[in-house]
């Protein structure tokens, strides 16, 4: 069974602005956020084994575990090195959890920002990785060394889609669903040359349709994305819509709240 890492939203909050979505005057409704997180948790539990990392008060975004790092071997993780000082306090908490659970922890050199599964996704024979907004190119090269396989770099060009997983998800080894407007034309060519591509329209990309969790033939997708939902249902996938409004205020949704603990 698939294993994933999540973090309870006990201290989730909006206390700083580090992306285009965060506005201090538009704070999340915390009880509602807890409810939304629990709904996601219950759905993930049907499909995967969930590990929980304890939350920390000084880390309001720790709930977004996809940014903890990337599993590079069965028991080895490449830990994130956050670009913004606001999220750097999360690093020791994630490190501790991985060490306590028997993982070898690799780290990126200084001045090489890397935000884990938020910016690098397994896609069949290789990995797809985003850069320019959070993770930098140097991290792609090092990740490729740890992974021992090809990593294709994709440039993100719109601040609203600042992590790769906000603009793209891998449906299966050969099909990628993405919002073309988030990428430059080289990246789009790379995607289309290597994969069968399906698109998310802008209005649904703005509702974080691309930030979906795919487990087998089931997708956990932020709600209010009817077009891409019907497209995937037509292809035989089960799509479970989950309200994510309170996490979107921080620039995250389903996928950001889940990290895969396997390659």
């Amino acid at each position, binding site marked *: 069974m698939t294993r994933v890492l999540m973090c309870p939203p006990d201290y989730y909050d909006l206390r700083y602005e580090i992306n285009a979505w965060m506005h201090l005057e538009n704070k999340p409704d915390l009880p509602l956020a807890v409810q939304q997180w629990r709904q996601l948790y219950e759905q993930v539990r049907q499909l995967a084994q969930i590990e929980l990392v304890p939350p920390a008060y000084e880390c309001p975004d720790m709930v977004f575990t996809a940014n903890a790092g990337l599993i590079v071997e069965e028991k080895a993780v490449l830990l994130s090195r956050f670009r913004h000082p606001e999220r750097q306090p999360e690093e020791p908490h994630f490190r501790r959890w991985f060490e306590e659970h028997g993982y070898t922890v690799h780290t990126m050199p200084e001045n090489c920002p890397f935000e884990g599964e938020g910016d690098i996704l397994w896609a069949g024979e290789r990995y797809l990785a985003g850069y320019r907004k959070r993770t930098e190119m140097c991290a792609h090269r090092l990740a490729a060394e740890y992974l021992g396989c090809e990593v294709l770099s994709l440039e993100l060009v719109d601040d609203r889609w600042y992590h790769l997983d906000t603009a793209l998800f891998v449906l299966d080894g050969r*099909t990628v669903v993405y919002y*073309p*407007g988030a990428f430059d034309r080289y990246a789009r060519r790379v995607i*289309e*040359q290597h994969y*069968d*591509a*399906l*698109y*998310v*329209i*802008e*209005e649904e990309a703005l509702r974080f349709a691309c930030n979906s969790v795919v487990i087998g033939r089931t997708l956990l997708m932020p709600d209010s994305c*009817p*077009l*891409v939902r*019907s*497209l995937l249902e*037509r*292809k*035989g996938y089960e799509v479970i819509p989950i309200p994510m409004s309170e996490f979107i205020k921080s620039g995250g949704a389903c996928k950001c709240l889940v990290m895969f603990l396997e390659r």
Partner: protein
Amino acid sequence: MHTELITLDGHIIDSLTLSKVLDMLIASGVDYEIREFRIGKSHDVPSHAEILVIAPDEESLQHALHEVQQHGAVISQKDAALQPAPQDGVFPDGFYSTTNLQTFVRIDGTWIPVERTEMDCGIRVIRTGAGWRAECVPLHWAKQGDLFVVGNAGVRVTPMPRREAESVFHFMGSEVSIEKPKTRIVQAVAHAVRETKLKGQRVLFVGGPAIVHTGAAPYLERIIRSGWIDVLFAGNALATHDIERVLYGTSLGVALETGAPETHGHEHHLRAINTIRAAGGIRQAVEKRILKSGIMHACVVAGVKMVLAGSIRDDGPLPDVITDTVQAQDAMREAIQDVGVALMVATTLHSIATGNLLPASVTTFCIDASADTVIKLTDRGSHQAFGIVTDCAFFMKELATQLCGEE
């Protein structure tokens, strides 16, 4: 038209009842036809009249009926007459020939909705346990002994509701529009597509090869990859030229980038067909990654239901093309279930074929550079079609922007 057959019996001539009822019908704003009239030969023999009341809408019909019922008119309420098909593929003499409007038939005193509304069909009725079902069927579906409705009695047709004055469709009218702001019209089409998807209905796209020749294929591809289209009808040509474009960068040998003919370019479309035939079909070519982009690739990846119907001048054809026209029609019939809106772009043959199959309740847009195509479609009874006379590359580009956002 809303119609109802009424009967008047009794001393309706001497008492001037017949004259009075006919006057009242005229005063109510409805028309009538006297279908049957028997005059009593003497004072003690009653007369009998059957009058078909014809009203422009249900409301005036009911109003007129209400008025005349008070003067002894009886709504006749006859059951539909049924006759068995004399042999396979043949309707009984005098069969009721359908329109594309929603129809009801009266059997055992009950009005039954006719399923699968389609024009130029017969109405087959089937006993189901205690009740009945009725459906439109084309000639070749008739089996000897099947029961069909004959004559006009016991058949009721519901016309399409009038378009609201403020709707875009009212603004467009149902005529062919040439002198209308084009961007506004594409907005209306995009709106109809959105509404259809929101209702959970399906979107049908019928396309001709000019989409590829004019360079509009990438726009259609974008619309398909975004999930807007559920069903695609086309012929060998659209598919072939799309595949030729992907494999060779040409459409009928003309380079799409430069517009110049290429040396030996005329062979490209046949080579494209040969490649797909060797792969076993379009889907197989996609799976083997021989075909990695284009409209056909997008349809396979997005799970679009495709019906490619052949014609006499086809080269190849591609293995996916259905060359038996009756089989192709049946495949199209099956694919149009739950379709709420149909876009027909730059094709006469396939537009008319599709128009023949669609019920009038399906909002239909016919886009062509030539007004003739659009007029042909409406002349053949697809009155619900909105004609838009414009260049298909402009239309497709604008539609892609409206549906998927700026590129």
